[in-house]
């Protein structure tokens, strides 16, 4: 028989220890909450003075909190507050906040954090460098743009864009690790804060072995309407990865020319279902009357979802003539009768 008493003592004892630990934590948290309230007030005053007064007496601020700056948690708090204010403000206020940050020597700690092995501290430091635009640390950050940890790598890529704008995209030349869809969205948002500056390399990125780089390059072409890259983009429509092909269809729709709809009708048959839907939707934007016979032909598909999208495409290409075209679409046979009814209502709206 197993001796149970030691186990009972162990479980009850550990419960008691955990309970005491929990109460101590709660007590400390409550004390800290009060302390943070006080500190928050001090930080807010400094930040408000920096942002709203013309005369920034940074040295005075530094003196008033000199002793507090030696406390790690206070430093963390004021850094957090300055970072959040820097994100919210632009122009002169933004510059003043950066000045405040540098005068408080908070950059000294960011370098320390950048060199630690702990990924989240490192990633946070990189984020800080980006927000505070610490350009002198460009090289150190750039080194991390292909870091094996996704978060470190992503924050480094974002920070590089924050530091040098479109030029920072050169990390795409060498990045071998994937860039997630989430971070692609963030990168595009960061770029939108800069005035569009022509940038080189997209043609190379479109041929990258890293499919996420190809997709991101296609999104860049889409976002900045890089019509001159039409031919290079067109080649991506034959890429082996279906996600790349899907993004290519979306992108090429934005920079389309007279031959685009022909290209779409040519590849339609061989495409996977999800891409067929994207093509049909793209033709709603760029299709012409010439494409209608092709679309009517495709309506023979058994797939009702595709049928609906194709019918909508026909209607959108030529809404005025849709009533006449309907006669060719088996308007009395299910499900076309119901689909046509829905599309007609959509056009009316």
């Amino acid at each position, binding site marked *: 028989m197993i001796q149970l008493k030691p186990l009972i003592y162990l479980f*009850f004892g550990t419960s008691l220890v*955990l309970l005491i630990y929990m109460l101590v*934590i709660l*007590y400390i948290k409550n004390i800290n909450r009060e302390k943070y309230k006080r500190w928050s007030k001090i930080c807010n005053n400094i930040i408000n003075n920096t942002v709203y007064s013309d005369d920034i007496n940074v040295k005075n601020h530094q003196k008033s909190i000199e002793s507090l700056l030696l406390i790690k948690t206070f430093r963390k708090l004021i850094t957090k507050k300055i970072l959040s204010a820097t994100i919210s403000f632009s122009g002169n206020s933004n510059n003043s906040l950066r000045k405040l940050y540098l005068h408080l020597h908070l950059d000294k700690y960011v370098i320390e954090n950048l060199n630690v092995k702990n990924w989240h501290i490192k990633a946070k430091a990189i984020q800080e460098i980006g927000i505070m635009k610490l350009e002198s640390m460009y090289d150190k950050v750039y080194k991390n743009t292909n870091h094996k940890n996704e978060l470190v790598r992503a924050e480094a890529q974002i920070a590089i864009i924050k530091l040098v704008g479109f030029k920072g995209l050169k990390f795409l030349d060498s990045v071998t690790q994937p860039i997630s869809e989430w971070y692609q969205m963030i990168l595009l948002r960061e770029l939108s804060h800069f005035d569009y500056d022509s940038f080189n390399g997209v043609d190379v990125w479109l041929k990258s072995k890293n499919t996420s780089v190809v997709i991101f390059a296609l999104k860049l072409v889409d976002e900045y309407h890089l019509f001159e890259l039409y031919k290079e983009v067109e080649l991506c429509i034959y890429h082996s990865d279906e996600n790349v092909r899907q993004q290519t269809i979306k992108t090429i729709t934005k920079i389309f020319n007279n031959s685009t709809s022909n290209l779409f009708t040519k590849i339609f048959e061989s495409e996977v279902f999800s891409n067929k839907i994207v093509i049909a939707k793209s033709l709603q934007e760029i299709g012409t009357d010439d494409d209608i016979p092709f679309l009517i032909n495709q309506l023979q598909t058994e797939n009702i979802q595709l049928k609906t999208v194709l019918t909508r495409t026909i209607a959108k290409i030529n809404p005025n003539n849709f009533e006449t075209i309907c006669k060719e679409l088996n308007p009395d046979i299910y499900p076309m009768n119901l689909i046509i009814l*829905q599309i007609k209502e959509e056009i009316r709206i």
Partner: protein
Amino acid sequence: MSWQSLFFEIFSYGIMMYSLILIISYIFIGVYSIGETKHYLNKNSFTDYNAISSSSKAPRVSIIAPAYNEGATIIENVRSLLSLHYNNLELIIVNDGSKDDSLEKLIDKYDLYKTSYFVNSQIKTKPVKGVYKSRKLIYRKLIVVDKENGGKADALNTGINISSYEYAVCVDVDCILEQDSLLKLVKPFLENTTKKVIATGGVIRIANSCVIENGRLIQVNLPKKFLPRVQTLEYIRAFLLGRMAWSRLNGLLLISGAFGAFDKEIAIKCGGYDTETVGEDIELVVRMRRYMEELELPYKVSFIPDPLCWTEAPDNFKILGRQRNRWTRGTIETLKIHKKMFFNPDYGILGLLSYPYWFFFEFLAPIIEFFGLISLAFFAYFGMINWTYFINLLLMVFSFGILYSVFAILMEVLTYNQYKKKSEILKLVLTAMLEPIFFHPFVVYSAIRGNIDYLRKKKSWGEMTRTGFGTTNKTPKS
């Protein structure tokens, strides 16, 4: 040795071994969840969700909320869902043949008109009577579907058929969602580069006694009544420890029906929710996982520890009993449908770990406990019990139960700390001590009833009466 003694020895050792394995797996779950929660919190600490909420590039999400006889609160509930911070969103309310005035209220409030909407029934459902949209531009995200009654799963399938976006978020219409809940739920779909995320879920918390104002959670309070409070503790344990650990193992089987997101394409390919089971939420996740395993596609079911959704817990034994009865039947039905995976190495972690765990420790646990009690009476009658040892065994199990609960409360304090007052934490600890005496036996009883009802082929959900949030604006719910 007599046959009675032999049977007694085998039985005792069997129960002992089972308890030890159960305790070891709980210890493993508790410890293993720490890493996942820590990783998530570290990662989340510098994620800017606001950047995406208003972006037109954010993934498109269809919220599907089935409603049955929700007339008393439907307007408030829809308003709450419409106010979520998210740009690319459509909200589909499926009126599942309500007998009350839910539909009329919606038509009236949101100025709805019946459209000529063609429903592409990719998943078979009960007939749709009408699809309504609003004439007002501000409610353009709203779609109301009126259909014949077919149950929750059927209503959700109808919503999936109607939805035009890539991700389907299925919610209980009376849940209170955090403003950024959609962003947090959708993010895992976009950040995984090596595995396809097929479903995500977040933590469900108990809203009883919380202050709700205009469909928003204003103040978190610990439930005043014992039953909701003990469920609060149960949910903390299940979500903060259990699901985080299973998520880390990529073995999660359950995304709560109250709030979960799915890759719509995969959900449709799997045939949508099973209308023949009362555990449609767990069954769909298991089926989607099985589908991915059979196609040998890399995938993940993701779970995040943020409290995203607040729901009202049953506050009387009658309703609670129905809920637990249904959960038991849902588990049995799901395990039966997918019995092929039991210890089947072709299904990896799913077949070798997740399924057996659910079988032995979710399905069998109450049965073993129940028969343990009967055997105890039997052995006691024949004077075969070593009472000192028995009491020690009982104390050991009791002390471990308390330890596990205290650990879960500690994790809550260290992470989200929703209950900030010392008195609330002490009440939770006290609840943990009372739970095995006043709550757990009832849960076992309900599970046994669930087993019996399953054998009797009972298929009903059982009525779930709720007080509702809409009627108690600005006042704490008790």
